[in-house]
Every structure is written in structure tokens, then in C-alpha cells.
């Protein structure tokens, strides 16, 4: 039987269903006030998708503003040092604003403009999504409010300043541990209070339907390019794709175009924090169980009574107790594997990458690299790993210096 004879529903890429579900995960768990807006957004997104003008407009901005396509770099020195599989980097850190976040933000801002919205709210963890959002708001002259946990404001000062320069209002959130989860709550509260003119620009493949699907679609440009680039470079698909996961947008973007290519192993790397069993972790799939938060059913870090627990990671971008619902589903059906990498392992990988390739990766992708460093040596030299280097690490140098005992 050839691939083309499969009905569409046999593809792993056909989700979500019309209730916004991937298996049991996903859905639309929001207050009634927001429900009509989600239905309106869903309709606006379908209309945009079907409109060739929308695609044309997005392609224009992706090419000339974001700077796509991003290169696929053969990391030769790192490969030699590891002594096993060939390691390639998908260089999303070279995008404008320094991460993969702008792919999604550019898509959604065009949808928001079509819907006639004049004000944008967004949540941010490391500040990468906040910076990307503030950037397009500057470009299109829209009002912009970014919610950021107070802890994250402290550890990501350069990004906070960037957002200010771009004209955004940054509101520190002191509730909870002052991280991404709390920023998400506060952004939702703002949205519900300002539904008439405000668009909630979600930064990851989580939240109520249609966000997980829409963000995935906009990020899939990463995987689509990798497929073409690796075929050109190696004449075949990679054996393994590795990406770090907080909410999971860079991972979903690189995984999705490969879901039906069963020879390609997909590995998502969660932040294990101080260790998977330390109680100080952000590994939702490895240490959580399914529940409902922020509009979707997914794996969550929670206690036995269903109260959400605080996540912990050295990386502000991974410091979230949930994960996108499609990842939860890919885990349960066994199509993707999810592993944990600790703060210390990520710090080590951060330095190795910088030293061997001259690329300072974001602490988020250093988690992915740490896993590559674990598996590559045991693989054959003709095998291929692609790592999504989803962001640059300039924003993290203060955190890294602190952990290395260096005073800047």
C-alpha cells in the first residue's frame, strides 16, 4: 500500500478534531465570556487559511522581515567532539528578534489585523515571545501589553528593556511564583476584561482551541524547511529530531511535518530542573498527569487534589507546569518521546555549544543539546540528528554567569 492510498484520517497530521481535541487532549475550557471570541477567532483563522492573499502576505513578511528561510547548519566540530551521529542545527536563533517565536507572532498578528483588533495582550516567560509580540506591534502600530512573571522580569532584564524600547507596556505579575503560569492567568484576565478591542496573542501551542492548532501551523514552517534542507544536504530524512519543550511550540513546529515519516524519531526535551524526582522540575509529561488548565486538557504538574504546582527550571522559557495538548497526545500514542534534562546538564551544553560552534544558544535549546550530547556518541557516524536551535542565548548570559559564579 502506498502512502497516498491512506485516507486523510490515517495521517497523524490531521488533528485536531472539530472540538479542538487531539485524542483526549485539547478542547476549549474557558469562561463563557471568552467562548464567543474563540468561535470568532476560529472562523477568522479558517477564512485566512483559505485565502491565497493571506498566505502571500505572510510569506512576504516571513522572508523580508523575519529573515526566512533559516539555515540548516552542519555542526562539524560538535559532531567530531561527540564522535557519533552527524549533528545539524536548525538555526531559528537567526530569525529577527532572535528566536522561533516571530514565526507564530507574524501569523497571528495578520489574523488579528483582519479581525480589526487594535490592542494586543500576550504572556511571556523568557521574554522571547514578549519581544516578538512587541516587535510586530511596533511594526503595525498596535497597542501592546505584555504580562510577565515578576521573577522572570528579574532574570530576563535585557528582554524587558527591549520590550520597553519597542513601545510595549510590561506588567510584572507577582501572583504565585511570578513565572509563566501566573503571567498566563493575568493575560487571560486582561483579555476577558477587554474583549471588544483586544486580541490575545498566545505564544505557544497551548491554550484553548484554535490556538494549539494555529500556533503549530505557523511554526510548521520550521519542519517544512528542515525536510527540504536535509534532503538537499544528505539526500534523506534525519534519523532523530530533538527539540526543547516548555509549552512546546518550537518542538511542534519542527515535529509536525515529520509526523507521518515513521523512520524519524522525534524527541522532546523537557526541563527536569534540579532532577525529575527533586520536586523542582518543569517536566509535565514525565512527572505530571492529565488535567485542565489555561483552556486545554493536557499533562500538568499538579498535586493529588488537582491544584497546579509551581514548575522549576533555570530556563524561564521552560518554567511552565503544562505542555501543548498535541504533545500530550503524541506521547500517549508513542509517536514522540519525551525526556528530561537538568539545569546543570543544560548549563554544560550551553558552554559546549558556544565553545565548539561559536553559537551561544538560549538556555531553552541548551536542554535539547544536552540530550543530543547523550545520544549522539552511541549512534553510527552515518546517522543524522537535527536539533532545533530555537533561540539565541544573549538574554541568558546573566543567568549563566550567576550559576558559574561570575559577576558581570
Amino acid at each position: 500500500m502506498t502512502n497516498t492510498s491512506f485516507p486523510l484520517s490515517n495521517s497523524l497530521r490531521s488533528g485536531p478534531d472539530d472540538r479542538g481535541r487531539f485524542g483526549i487532549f485539547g478542547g476549549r475550557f474557558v469562561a463563557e465570556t471568552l467562548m464567543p471570541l474563540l468561535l470568532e477567532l476560529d472562523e477568522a483563522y479558517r477564512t485566512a487559511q483559505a485565502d491565497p492573499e493571506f498566505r502571500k502576505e505572510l510569506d512576504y513578511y516571513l522572508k523580508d522581515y523575519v529573515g526566512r528561510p533559516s539555515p540548516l547548519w552542519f555542526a562539524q566540530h560538535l559532531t567530531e567532539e561527540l564522535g557519533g551521529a552527524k549533528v545539524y542545527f536548525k538555526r531559528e536563533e537567526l530569525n529577527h528578534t532572535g528566536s522561533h517565536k516571530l514565526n507564530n507572532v507574524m501569523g497571528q498578528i495578520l489574523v488579528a489585523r483582519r479581525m480589526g483588533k487594535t490592542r494586543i495582550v500576550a504572556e511571556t516567560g523568557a521574554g522571547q515571545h514578549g519581544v516578538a509580540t512587541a516587535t510586530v506591534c511596533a511594526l503595525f502600530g498596535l497597542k501592546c501589553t505584555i504580562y510577565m512573571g515578576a521573577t522572570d522580569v528579574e532574570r530576563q532584564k535585557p528582554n524587558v528593556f527591549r520590550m520597553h524600547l519597542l513601545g510595549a507596556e510590561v506588567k510584572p505579575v507577582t501572583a504565585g511564583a511570578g513565572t509563566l503560569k501566573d503571567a498566563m492567568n493575568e493575560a487571560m484576565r486582561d483579555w476577558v476584561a477587554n474583549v471588544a478591542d483586544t486580541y490575545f496573542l498566545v505564544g505557544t501551542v497551548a491554550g484553548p482551541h484554535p490556538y494549539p492548532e494555529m500556533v503549530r501551523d505557523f511554526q510548521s514552517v520550521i519542519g517544512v524547511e528542515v525536510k527540504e534542507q536535509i534532503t538537499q544536504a544528505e539526500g534523506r530524512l534525519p534519523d532523530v529530531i530533538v527539540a526543547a519543550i516548555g509549552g512546546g511550540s518550537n518542538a511542534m513546529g519542527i515535529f509536525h511535518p515529520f509526523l507521518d515519516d515513521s523512520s524519524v524519531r522525534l524527541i522532546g526535551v523537557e526541563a527536569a530542573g534540579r532532577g525529575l524526582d527533586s520536586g523542582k522540575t518543569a517536566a509535565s509529561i514525565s512527572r505530571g498527569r492529565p488535567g485542565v488548565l489555561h483552556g486545554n486538557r493536557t499533562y500538568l504538574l499538579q498535586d493529588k487534589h488537582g491544584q497546579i504546582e509551581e514548575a522549576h527550571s533555570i530556563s524561564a522559557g521552560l518554567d511552565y507546569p503544562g505542555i501543548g495538548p498535541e504533545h500530550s497526545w503524541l506521547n500517549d500514542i508513542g509517536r514522540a518521546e519525551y525526556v528530561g534534562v537538568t539545569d546543570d546538564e543544560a548549563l554544560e551544553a550551553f558552554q559546549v555549544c558556544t565553545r565548539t560552534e561559536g553559537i551561544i544558544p538560549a538556555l531553552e535549546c541548551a536542554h535539547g543539546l544536552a540530550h543530543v550530547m547523550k545520544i549522539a556518541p552511541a549512534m553510527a557516524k552515518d546517522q543524522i540528528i537535527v536539533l532545533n536551535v530555537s533561540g539565541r542565548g544573549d538574554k541568558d548570559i546573566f543567568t549563566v554567569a550567576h550559576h558559574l559564579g561570575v559577576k558581570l
Partner: protein
Amino acid sequence: MSRIQTRFAALKKEGRGALIPYLQACDPDYDTSLQLLRAMPAAGADLIEIGVPFSDPSADGPTIQAAALRGLKAGATLGLVLEMVRAFRETDSETPIVLMGYLNPIDSYGPAEFCFDAAQAGVDGIIVVDMPTEEADLLDAHAREAGLDIITLVAPTTSNSRLFHVLREASGFVYYVSITGITGTNSASAADLEKALPRIREATDLPVAVGFGISTPEQARTASRIGDAAVVASALIKTMASTLENGQATEQTVPAVLKQLEGLAAAVRA
């Protein structure tokens, strides 16, 4: 007839709307909130809403967020909230009790087990803030089987056609979230309510409770007359919070809240 139906029918005969005060379970501790709960009917509560503390109350303003945190700190769990209702029912078999909270604690407890245990404990209705009609099949059948009403929320953003859709199988009463926003912030004006209520009544014969942003006796009176009930939450919690010392209850805590409740009740009954 359910306790909720009986109560609204009786109030209709009296020719007035209901006052529904809210308290957060275990805020600031189990004993104080049970004491308050037990005293509320005599102070003028016609129905009572009990908030189930949740770590991430994304539809609530700062006042209820803080109350939820105090409740959790005091050891609140869904099981303990049911125990509190059981204790209340020892002395009151008539005042309807409605639990208000978020889905995850219920999901974690188990939807079927929760509906059964809640009904057994003496709960009459449940409001699940983050469970719109589109996701309500998770609880609907279990609630119906247990004899619990799932109280449907409608909002200013709910269109006329959607009102018919979401209220088709509603029971108990309808909760009108009278502002687009979070609890305890803005208030709807009488004119807003005069415009909204006929829209809702077109789609349902159930009583309509008005909530979010009702704090003064005057507002409670207006809401209970244009609608069929007024829910007062943040205003009572603010009063309670102002009596706490280092987060602990004081001698003033229960009397202060009851005094405010009496003032609200007098306005609703005037």
C-alpha cells in the same frame, strides 16, 4: 422540587429577588468559614455560593485570588469543601448551596464520584467557571443522575442565538456574568441590566442571578429586581480580609461579614 426551585418559588410569592452571598471555603480557616456559612441564612442569605479554592483562578480578581490562596494554605480540598456542606446540612436543610470553582479539582476527584458525593453531602448546584457548554458533557450526565443542577453562565458577549444554544438544557438558575471582566472589578449599570435581562428571558424560563461587580446594598437591590437574584462575593471577602491579623481570623471576622450581609439583605427585601 429541588431546594433551588423551592426557594425561588417561595421568593416569587414574596415578590422579591434573592440575595446570594459567596464565601471561599476554608478562608481563612475551616472553622471560621463553617461558622460563617451556618450564620448566613439568619443574616439574610437566600441561597449560598461556596467558592472552591483553586491555585489558578483565571476568571477572578485580586480579592478572590487572595481568598483562594488563604483557603489553600488552610488545607482546602474539594473533599473538605463537601465535608463543610455536610456539616452545614446538619442544621439547615432548606438553604440551597451552590459550589463555584474551576474544573481541574473536579476532574482530579473524578467527575462521576464528585457529582455523587456532592449531592450526598447536600450540594444543590455547581458552577464550573472554565467549563462552557461545549465541554459540559464531561459532567452533564453524572450531575443529572445525582440530581445536581449545573448552573449555566451567560455573559454580555453571549449572542442571542448562542443564548438559546447554551440555555437549552440549563437547570436550577442561570448565572449572568454582568460585565466582561473578572470578579470584583467593574459593575454593570441598571441600564445595562435592563437591556440584558429581556434578552436572557427570551431564551429561558429559569430564574436569572446577576453576579460580578455587585458590592453595595443599592446595587444588590437593583440586580435582584431586574434579575431574580444578586450574587455578592468580593465585597464580602474584602470586609472579611480587613478583619484578619497575619492572615488569621479575629473576633471581628464573622460579625463584620454578617453585619454587611444584613445590610445587603435589608436592601434586597425593602
